[in-house]
């Protein structure tokens, strides 16, 4: 496929866990379920590489026949003169111009093509790690003129569209972190009190939140220790920074809590400038919710794959 127009778009798959001790974060799609869904729509394995669209329209010219599918924050897909809502698998023929338009109600959209995006594997993954230019398409964002190879093997495309998954207006669930002693009780109340707004300076490394400043009991800098995806760091100015898949693996800021894994994708989909409301849950509740969601997602994908 030939990229004709791209804003902020990178090749991503489900990432490369296992190298955090070397300073390389796991990376991969910010909304993992949306990537898996887009892949399923076009008959790919869930782990195939697709295009994560974070900003701007994405337009390409197909060089071969195949199927394209989208999931996540995608408003529409135009193939030639015909426009379709996001979420269905669409046939394309060689020479077709395809334009994918993001949905401003979310933040990350996924475009999968049958066969998967075939860029070289780096440490077992095709995900793009921008800070040091690792993986993906030459370690960088996609740009007009890029010719992307597409794999040749894919199963049958899904025979129906994905059910519309409306963006639920519910709080993002948080679990405690180990540094409770660094914060006065008021900090925990403030974090779930009023909504926070997502700064436009947010990227795949972290979501910067603007809102009620969180007070700290001690100096902000501790000996650096391991962080995690979803961890909410609080620097001196009290404005929280939530770690996303390409975020640093270690850090010295105290962490007030961590987004529950079940809500990582939902949180990542908070649009730039949009608001997010948090609520506290226990780790046990988080695990229950994660297992329930995983089962529901697996059932949905299995149903799409069935004839």
């Amino acid at each position, binding site marked *: 496929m030939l990229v004709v127009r791209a804003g902020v778009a990178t090749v991503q798959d489900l990432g490369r866990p*296992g*190298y*955090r001790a070397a300073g390389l974060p796991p990376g991969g799609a910010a909304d993992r379920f949306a990537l898996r869904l887009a892949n399923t729509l076009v008959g790919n394995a869930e782990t195939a590489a697709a295009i994560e669209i974070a900003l701007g329209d994405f337009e390409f010219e197909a060089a071969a026949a195949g199927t394209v599918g989208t999931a996540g924050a995608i408003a529409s897909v135009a193939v030639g003169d015909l426009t379709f809502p996001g979420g269905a698998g669409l046939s394309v023929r060689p020479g077709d111009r395809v334009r994918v338009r993001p949905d401003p109600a979310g933040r990350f959209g996924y475009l999968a093509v049958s066969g998967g995006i075939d860029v070289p594997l780096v*440490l077992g993954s095709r995900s793009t790690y921008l800070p040091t230019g690792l993986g993906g398409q030459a370690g960088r964002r996609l740009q007009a003129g890029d010719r992307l190879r597409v794999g040749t093997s894919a199963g049958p495309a899904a025979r129906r569209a994905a059910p519309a998954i409306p963006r639920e207006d519910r709080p993002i669930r948080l679990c405690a972190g180990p540094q409770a002693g660094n914060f006065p009780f008021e900090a925990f109340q403030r974090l779930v009190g009023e909504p926070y707004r997502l700064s436009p300076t947010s990227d795949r490394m972290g979501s910067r939140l603007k809102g009620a400043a969180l007070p700290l009991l001690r100096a902000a800098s501790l*000996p650096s220790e391991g962080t995690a995806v979803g961890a909410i760091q609080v620097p001196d100015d009290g404005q929280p920074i939530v770690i996303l898949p390409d975020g640093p693996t270690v850090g010295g800021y105290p962490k007030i809590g961590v987004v529950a894994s079940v809500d990582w994708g939902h949180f990542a989909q908070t649009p730039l400038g949009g608001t997010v409301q948090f609520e506290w849950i226990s*780790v046990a509740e988080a695990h229950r919710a994660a297992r329930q969601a995983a089962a529901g997602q697996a059932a949905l994908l299995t149903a799409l794959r069935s004839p």
Partner: protein
Amino acid sequence: MTTRPPRLAPLGDAAITVTYADRIDDVVHARLGADARRVAAALGSAVEVVPAYSALTIHYDPAHWSFAELRDRLLPILAGPGGTAAPAPGPLIEVPVRYDGEDLDAVARATGLTSVEVITRHTGPEYRVYLLGFVPGFAYLGPLDPALVLPRRATPRPRVPSGSVAIAGSQTGIYPAATPGGWHLLGRTAVPLFDPARDPPALLAVGDRVRFVAER
């Protein structure tokens, strides 16, 4: 010397933090490094262990473990033998450096040493790798000779030369790529700090020892 047992706490629902101390201590660090290896040996790819200055972070799949299950598997490993005996030191890696960094003269002025003395004091010690982070392959090394201790630069550079050897506070490190950087640049090495084609990809690992060698 007796050591307190480390404290385990959830870091969200997909990681656990094991805290050994609230400050940097070489004996503690050696112990947590040994614990990290034991945990990795016992649990394999079911977990991912990340050592730091005074804590371990253990990442796990919340679909496979509950916090209580993993904690119960970890406690016996962390309380295991090791006690007061210092674990064997890690391998020594010598890193050749061309000491022509942009900040070498400024560091000399700020510390009241000559450039030659700065180089001598930087190449003297055997440094310990405390942790890797910031970007892939960036190792935090220490402790630096106290005569070289300076706060980091007031204004970080948006881009430092790849392979830059630098200092800040009581640490020294090597930038694996041309990234932003706020440390003082003493020189450069051509040795790759991170190579995805190599196994393991990072040159340095926690617990290794590093000595810098001045190139002619």
